[in-house]
């Protein structure tokens, strides 16, 4: 069934394909346009460089009047990301505007990576290290960057196995 929210998401998808923003990619899941998978590439010249971080976006029929629920699936170490992958970002909560689309959400999260807001910490250790021990912070980030590649390898291998059987 086509609803205004679903048609808006089709437009978001079309725009993503025609005018793909740098460093992010996303697509709806095969059988449900209300659930999307996305990848954010860690921005250059930041500790997150070369990371390939997977996320999910879950929309409701109230989209775009209500924001989607966005979560990191890949392990993240960031002052504004909760242990369950949930993201503390104003535009996904009280500063949401119905003019945002999937591309805008993902590019905002991408810029949040290198511009954390230590005033609203979701991961207190990450916030503390970011402010007090930047070397240790970057070491922890480097570890999750490496982990983000492993996630992708697992998936590739899984798909290869499916082909074999």
């Amino acid at each position, binding site marked *: 069934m*086509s609803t*205004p929210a679903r048609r808006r998401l089709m*437009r978001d998808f079309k725009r993503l394909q025609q005018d793909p923003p740098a460093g992010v990619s996303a697509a709806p899941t095969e059988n449900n346009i209300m659930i999307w998978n996305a990848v954010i590439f860690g921005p250059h010249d930041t500790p997150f460089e070369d990371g390939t971080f997977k996320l999910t976006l879950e929309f409701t029929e109230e989209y775009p009047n209500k924001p989607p629920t966005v979560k990191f699936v890949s392990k993240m170490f960031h002052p504004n990301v909760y242990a369950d992958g949930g993201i503390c970002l104003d535009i996904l909560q009280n500063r949401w505007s119905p003019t945002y689309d999937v591309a805008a959400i993902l590019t905002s999260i991408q810029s949040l990576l290198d511009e954390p807001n230590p005033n609203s910490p979701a991961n207190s250790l990450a916030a503390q290290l970011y402010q007090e021990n930047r070397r240790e912070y970057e070491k922890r980030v480097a570890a999750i960057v490496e982990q983000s590649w492993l996630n992708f390898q697992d998936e590739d291998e899984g798909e290869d196995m499916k082909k074999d059987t």
Partner: protein
Amino acid sequence: MFTLKKWNAVAMWSWDVECDTCAICRVQVMDACLRCQGENKQDDCVVIWGECNHSFHNCCMSLWVKQNNRCPLCQQEWSTQAKGVNFTRLLISEGRWAGEQEV
């Protein structure tokens, strides 16, 4: 030398707006919004302007202001400057807009 036998004036118009796409549903404000297209209510879909000069489909905006009374583009407190019908759509629906034919 010659006489003027017939004289036709043509008027072109478009909305006096900064951006002709409704930033909420991403459809041009000249067309009906996504909701009205789906419900076949194209004729009722009008444009609304704020004091900030941003414009949207009235349907899209009325749903948003219910939860947050500010302009989705500039975050200013929303107050309506004008509401308009879409004349082209109105004329088409009344059969008065038939291409080359003189109105």
